[in-house]
């Protein structure tokens, strides 16, 4: 026992130093490691996610292969349209050529474009009036372009000194709210859209009825930065007789009121409906927006009445309903907006 305890006296001081140094070193290393662990655990605690959240994700989609543009020297009711649609803009003007290589000034570079026109005069719209909605597609790349267009009619009231311009939505709550909301419905129902103006025909005016308010335009082999026009005809028929009759043998329609579409029997040939079939189907499916009847039961079974509008009694019923709706439009609606949505 004594022998183990008594270390050699001669080397004990040096050994003690060595030992001290060793233990100091060991202690230092350990301390340093402990410090590292402490630092990392602090960071780890700090960066620990015990609450995970994911907010606002930006999904980038490949852009449309074309821009839309407007051409014309004037804007209809520019004060009213900027008040009604403050997110729309006139776009910035630029020079582009059309497909015949004629240069012109087009307003573009905006996703919400206010359309333009050129006519010298502009008037208030009443039953029997019609017009053309025109815009241009300017491709950004070459190739085949397809544009899908959907149309909407939105009504407004006011816009005079007495009353501010107000959009008529389902929750409109101004004076005569119920009548005004119905009038906006009739306004939407009474504006009809067509693809072509059949100028070669004297017996009717339009073909290509767009009764579902959608249109697909294809431009094959389009060239970039060339403006291709898209024209859609809109019409507010003056009388029901110009829309619903299959024949005027009974003289129900005055000869001076030219039919809007060809007066013929409605037919579906090879799955394709003719304009008369499309319009009669539209009058039935949108009957609550086209006709104003006092009794809601009149709307039931109206398809048989519409399909045989050539008989005097049916014709008078439908005409009264159509004219009453027109009268309400004129009384309660002051402006309407035709809005197009274009997708690729």
């Amino acid at each position, binding site marked *: 026992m004594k022998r183990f305890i008594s270390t050699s006296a001669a080397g004990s001081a040096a050994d003690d130093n060595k030992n001290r140094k060793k233990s100091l070193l060991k202690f230092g290393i350990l301390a340093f490691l402990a410090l590292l662990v402490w630092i990392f655990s602090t960071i780890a605690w700090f960066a620990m996610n015990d609450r995970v959240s*994911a907010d606002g*994700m930006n999904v980038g*989609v490949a852009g449309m292969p074309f821009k839309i543009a*407007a051409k014309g020297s004037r804007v209809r009711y520019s004060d009213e349209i900027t008040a009604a649609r403050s997110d*729309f803009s006139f776009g910035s003007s630029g020079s582009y050529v059309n497909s015949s290589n004629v240069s012109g000034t087009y307003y573009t570079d905006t996703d*919400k*474009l206010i359309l333009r026109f050129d006519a010298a005069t502009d008037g208030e*719209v009443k039953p029997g009036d019609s017009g053309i909605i025109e815009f241009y597609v300017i491709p950004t790349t070459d190739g085949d372009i397809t544009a899908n267009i959907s149309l909407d009619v939105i009504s407004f009231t006011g816009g005079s000194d007495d009353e501010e311009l107000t959009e008529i939505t389902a929750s409109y709550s101004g004076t005569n709210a119920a009548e005004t909301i119905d009038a906006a419905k009739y306004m939407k129902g009474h504006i009809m859209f067509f693809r072509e103006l059949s100028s070669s025909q004297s017996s009717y005016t339009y073909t290509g009825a767009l009764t579902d308010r959608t249109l697909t335009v294809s431009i094959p082999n389009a060239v970039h930065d060339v403006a291709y026009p898209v024209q859609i005809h809109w019409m507010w028929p003056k009388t029901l007789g110009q829309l619903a009759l299959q024949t005027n043998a009974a003289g129900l329609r005055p000869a001076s009121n030219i039919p809007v579409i060809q007066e013929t029997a409605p037919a579906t040939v090879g799955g394709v409906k003719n304009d008369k079939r499309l319009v009669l189907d539209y009058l039935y499916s949108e009957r609550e927006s086209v006709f104003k009847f006092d009794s809601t039961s009149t709307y039931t079974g109206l398809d048989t009445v519409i399909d045989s509008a050539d008989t005097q009694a049916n014709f008078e019923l439908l005409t009264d309903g159509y004219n009453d709706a027109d009268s309400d439009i*004129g009384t309660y609606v*002051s402006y309407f907006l035709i809005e197009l949505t274009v997708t690729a």
Partner: protein
Amino acid sequence: MKNIISKLRAVPLKRKLQAAAAAVVTIAFTAVFQSYAWFSEQKKAAEMFKVKHPDLLYLNAAHGEDQIYFNLGNIDIYLQDENGNFVDASGNRLADGVPPVRATNRYVFSVSGSNTTAFTLQLAYTTNNDLEYRVYNAAELDTEPSGDHVDYVLHEDDPSTASVNEASVETHRYYTKGSQVSFNKMNPDSTNSHLALADSSNRYYSANYGSGSLVHENAVPMYEQGSVSTNTTDEFCKYFILEVERAEGNSNYQLDKETDIVYISVEKNNT
């Protein structure tokens, strides 16, 4: 297997929660990615139009009251007292053999509307009673004027509808005659201007009597038309006095009450 289970059990609760949360977020990310996939870019274009106010034309009784209050009723042909004796304008009984004095009956009606610069007034009447109809422009007054005027009680204050305890209040409007509206007879009989005639193409009564030719001469309607200007495209309301009197020069002095029908119509002039 047991090892794994025991190891899993050994994981503290917090770690389990974090793992679960991470898994949920991953699933959510996937779901969100799916629903955003259909979102596609779109552009819009719009054009604004103004709707024209409809052309309105209304025919009403005096003061714009409902048509039901325009009532001709029993017309006095000659001035008579309560016993049926002919009297003169002052109420004095006329001597025998003196022709009776024609009574002038006046009725007020109004034409109102908007967006109408000129309209045509039409009177269509049968000629059983040999009456003359004249239309004058009229002015409405709140206070009773001293001269010749027509007194009208507004029906909203009809005393017969007032309750027993309510003091009945009558509100009057007074109408004075202005200039006469000039009318043209459209179908007078060439031999007797008091009668109307169907023209050779039977235009004037085919809607009523068809193509029959055995129509009594007094049942053929007489049409008279006159044009009135409003001088405004805004809202307007014009008053008229209809004067009904036995025709001048009628010496039959018949009092038998016959029935006549008179229609007042108004149509906008399209200029």
